[in-house]
């Protein structure tokens, strides 16, 4: 092996580092004391990340023949890439460059200059010893399959699928419900423009239905995901609709003739009915009905078959079974959406006990012209128009007892409700809010418009909604008890109807879905982004992207933007054809592996496979994400990990411990 020639570069970062750390001293010390470790050049510079600083490294690599570089500056999360690229420009393998974070971990968090300088030296020593153990690495290249899987047919998924398909690439769109459209299809109006949701959504839905590049699979669920970025293999279960699709023309006669009426808890949010064979709504895409097996009289009692009798095309097939389909895709976009928080979990709000307390989704359906009341706003009795209506914000949001986040859409949704109630009933309206949050385009203007409609706004989190009257005025009413915090008084407001703007929560099975796709969830259950600000549509797993409310509450424009953004990323991968992955990977030494199988179940990405014939385990580099858990677990020491090898980390520990807490002469005497 050729001799290690290491260059050390210590950054002042203006006064950010130099204000606390004696930077010149660190550089000088490294040259004097770390010569044995291979340090041949050691310099300090005002700003290492500037072009001057970068050129300094490049020149030294070229002229001094450096084969390792250590930059003591800020956090590697900030500038590791900068210095690796600089090294690469000078012909050095970028992975032979290492950083010591003497700003975030030293100058910004410590005050005693002498001790901080000592720590900076130790960190340089650690990095020098570590880099000496580095090996040149090459990125891993994987080919990208052109097809994409989009999971979830709400507006985010629809958008993503259309973008990719319109770019000419095949898409499989999988939706769990009988129709695409998601929550948006349930709404009547959308804020703040009050566009009719159906009017803007259904054209997109039909476009999906007819797109030659989109293979739409509704009433279907992903069962299994194998493979890795560029080459996923996905098994999809197409649940049986008990309909021969080729024969069905979507006439809807079966639905009319079906004698079973049940409460539709999904699309109608529990305030409307549907049949046992049904399409969730008239504009459903695809327009085939679904037979609800658990509720079908034939399946329960063995007789009925009314649908079959009346079907003009003989499309009903009670024998039809689920189908399993395998598809191969290069990328996956998860747009699985959200659930509405079950407001029964807030007992003091009376939902489920007091008939005239409605959830937001119930109210959306009530407002919808195609909904159970044909758009009439009425009390639970179905006829009485309310004279006074309360709208409760933050029902289950911003509350450690329920969901400790702002659901972000409820303020605007509540304003929309207020407007609709005003427009359709003329009732007196109270909005109960904690803080009004209207940060979108034209959102605050909408708030002002609702104010002008003489809606009352009471700032206070509603404490309880009760039917326990204290006096005559309250008899027979719903009483909303709240502190009007702007008055500093408790108020009891008798109303006819209350709407709870319920929190948005992750899908009940979001944890299972995350596990299935090998991504992670935050503690709240929303899918975690690779970076919340700079990469909100990627996940830690290469080739799996997220869009829409699956990552957290969002309004429609944001969901659509994310759908497009995820699609753009996927398209760029497809266009590139090949993807370069960070070469931080684990490898099993076949010679040393004893086939003990300790590591086999440790990988969440199923990257470790066991070969029965040779009795050794092997790691699939495209699946491996480089966490190093198996490296640490291997009892034989047969697994090694690039970038974070035992040798590198142990060398760094040794280096860090080279120097004491403080230099003896600098030590303070109490």
């Amino acid at each position, binding site marked *: 092996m050729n001799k290690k020639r290491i260059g050390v570069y210590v950054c002042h970062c203006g006064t950010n580092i130099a204000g606390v750390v004696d930077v010149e001293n660190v550089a000088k010390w490294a040259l004097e004391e770390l010569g044995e470790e291979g340090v041949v050049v050691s310099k300090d510079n005002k700003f290492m990340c500037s072009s001057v600083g970068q050129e300094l490294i490049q020149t030294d690599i070229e002229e001094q023949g450096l084969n390792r570089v250590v930059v003591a500056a800020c956090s590697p999360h900030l500038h590791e890439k900068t210095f690796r690229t600089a090294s690469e420009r000078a012909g050095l393998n970028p992975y032979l460059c290492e950083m010591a974070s003497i700003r975030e971990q030293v100058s910004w968090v410590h005050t005693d200059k002498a001790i901080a300088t000592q720590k900076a030296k130790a960190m340089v020593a650690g990095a020098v010893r570590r880099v000496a153990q580095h090996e040149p690495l090459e990125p891993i290249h994987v080919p990208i399959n052109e097809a994409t899987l989009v999971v979830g047919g709400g507006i985010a998924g629809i958008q993503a699928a259309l973008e990719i398909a319109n770019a000419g690439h095949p898409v499989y769109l999988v939706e769990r419900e009988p129709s695409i459209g998601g929550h948006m299809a349930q709404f009547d109006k959308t804020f703040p423009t009050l566009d009719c949701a159906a009017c803007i959504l259904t054209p997109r839905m039909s476009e999906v239905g007819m797109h030659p590049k989109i293979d739409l699979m509704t009433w279907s669920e992903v069962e299994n995901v194998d493979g890795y970025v560029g080459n996923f293999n996905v098994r999809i279960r197409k649940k049986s609709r008990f309909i021969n699709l080729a024969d069905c023309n979507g006439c809807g006669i079966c639905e009319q003739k079906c004698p079973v009426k049940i409460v539709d808890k999904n699309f109608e949010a529990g305030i409307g009915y549907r049949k046992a064979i049904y399409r969730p709504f008239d504009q459903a895409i695809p327009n085939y009905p679904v037979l609800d097996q658990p509720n079908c009289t034939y399946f329960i009692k063995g007789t009925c078959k009314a649908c079959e009798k009346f079907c003009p095309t003989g499309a009903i097939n009670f024998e039809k079974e689920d189908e399993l389909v395998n598809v191969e895709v290069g990328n996956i976009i998860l747009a699985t959406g959200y659930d509405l928080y079950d407001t029964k979990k807030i007992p003091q709000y009376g939902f489920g006990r007091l008939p005239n307390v409605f959830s937001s989704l119930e109210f959306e359906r009530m407002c919808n012209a195609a909904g159970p009341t044909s758009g009439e706003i009425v009390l639970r009795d179905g006829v009485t128009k309310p004279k006074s209506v309360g709208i409760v914000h933050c029902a289950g949001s911003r509350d450690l007892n329920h969901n400790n986040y702002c659901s972000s859409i409820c303020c605007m949704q509540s304003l929309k409700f207020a407007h609709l109630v005003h427009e359709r009933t003329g009732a007196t309206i109270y909005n109960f809010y904690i803080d009004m949050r209207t940060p979108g385009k034209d959102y605050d203007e909408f708030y002002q418009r609702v104010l002008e409609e003489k809606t009352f706004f009471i700032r206070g989190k509603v404490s309880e909604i009760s039917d326990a009257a204290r006096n005559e005025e309250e008899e027979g009413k719903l009483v909303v008890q709240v502190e009007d915090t702007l008055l500093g008084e408790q108020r009891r407001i008798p109303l006819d109807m209350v709407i709870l703007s319920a929190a948005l929560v992750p899908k009940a099975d979001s944890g299972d879905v995350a596990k299935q796709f090998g991504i992670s969830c935050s503690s709240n259950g929303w899918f975690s982004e690779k970076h919340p600000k700079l990469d909100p549509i990627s996940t830690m797993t290469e080739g799996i992207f997220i869009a829409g409310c699956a990552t957290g509450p969002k309004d429609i424009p944001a969901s659509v933007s994310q759908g497009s953004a995820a699609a753009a990323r996927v398209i760029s991968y497809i266009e590139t054809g090949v993807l370069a992955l960070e070469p931080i990977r684990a490898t099993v030494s076949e*010679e*040393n*592996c*004893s*086939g*003990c*199988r*300790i*590591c*086999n*179940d*440790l990988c969440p990405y199923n990257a470790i496979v*066991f070969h029965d014939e040779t*009795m050794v385990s092997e790691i699939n580099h495209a699946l491996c994400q480089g966490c190093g*858990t198996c490296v*640490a*677990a*291997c*009892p*034989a*020491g*047969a697994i090694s990990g690039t970038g974070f090898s*035992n040798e590198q980390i*142990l060398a760094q520990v040794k280096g860090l411990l080279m120097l004491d807490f403080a230099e003896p002469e600098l030590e303070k005497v109490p």
Partner: protein
Amino acid sequence: MSENGKPKFAMYWAASCGGCEIAVLNIHEKILDFDANFEVAFWPVAMDAKYKDVEALEDGEILLTLFNGGIRNDENEHIAKLLRQKSQIMVAFGSCANEGCIPGLANLSPIESLFETVYNTVSTENEEGIRPQSSYEMPEGTIHIPEMYPVLRTLDQVIDVDYYMPGCPPESHQVAAVVDLVISVVKGEAVLPPKGTVIGAGNSTVCDECERTRNVKKIKKFVRIQDIERFDPEICLLEQGLICNGPATLSGCMAKCPTSGAPCVGCYGPGPRVLDYGARMVAALASVIDSRDPVEIEAILDGIVDPAGTFYKFNLAHSLLKTGKASWNGN
């Protein structure tokens, strides 16, 4: 070279039990080949010899020394250094010389407590509380006995070692193979492996040679062999909750213990390039415990009755913490 032209051989035992010598004799008729090719210069167990005879040899006059036992007192150290000086090839032979072995477990206790156990427990009649002293004044003059060191050291912590041959004791078939190799080298038919090589062992771990069926591992409970009534004769012992050190132990023994139903205790020491044997066992076992709940994990870990003794039965003196390599840097 001796007068008869045969190269000289030495074997010595320091802090050890003598099992290694028996393992050498256990190579059966091969011992005759050995005798035909070597002259024994020094082998206290086999034949009488004096230290001064060894001291009288030229440096490097012994071709091969098999040194077994750890360094526990000044006599051990003296002879180790002496033999090093006189030998061309120094082999750390057997677990004690390699990694401390059972005598190395004494490193868990300070020397006073060792003496207390040996000289002052119920089974010992020692009313005056006499303790060994390294030098004692007699009318005839001062007499010396070896001085006990505070810790046991492995051979390579004291002298430079050329080859390592692990095992407690090394398996006889491995001894025979090594003897064959050395003879071939002497005859000029083969060359020696690079210095520092582990000889007489495989390059994987015990599982590699174990015939039991192995599956993906998930452990809900650790048990000791005396605590279970029946165990499956075919399945990996670890999967049945028995702590078997096989996954972390260097192969070469043909997995005799686990194959016959006794969990591996780890006498062959760590696999290639492993810095700390116990750390491997800790990492591996903890990884496959099937629980995420700290309380439940602790309950499962309660099944590992003596973690240090289990994971460091043979390797303690060579481990990082109990005076292993790091401690002896620059010594």
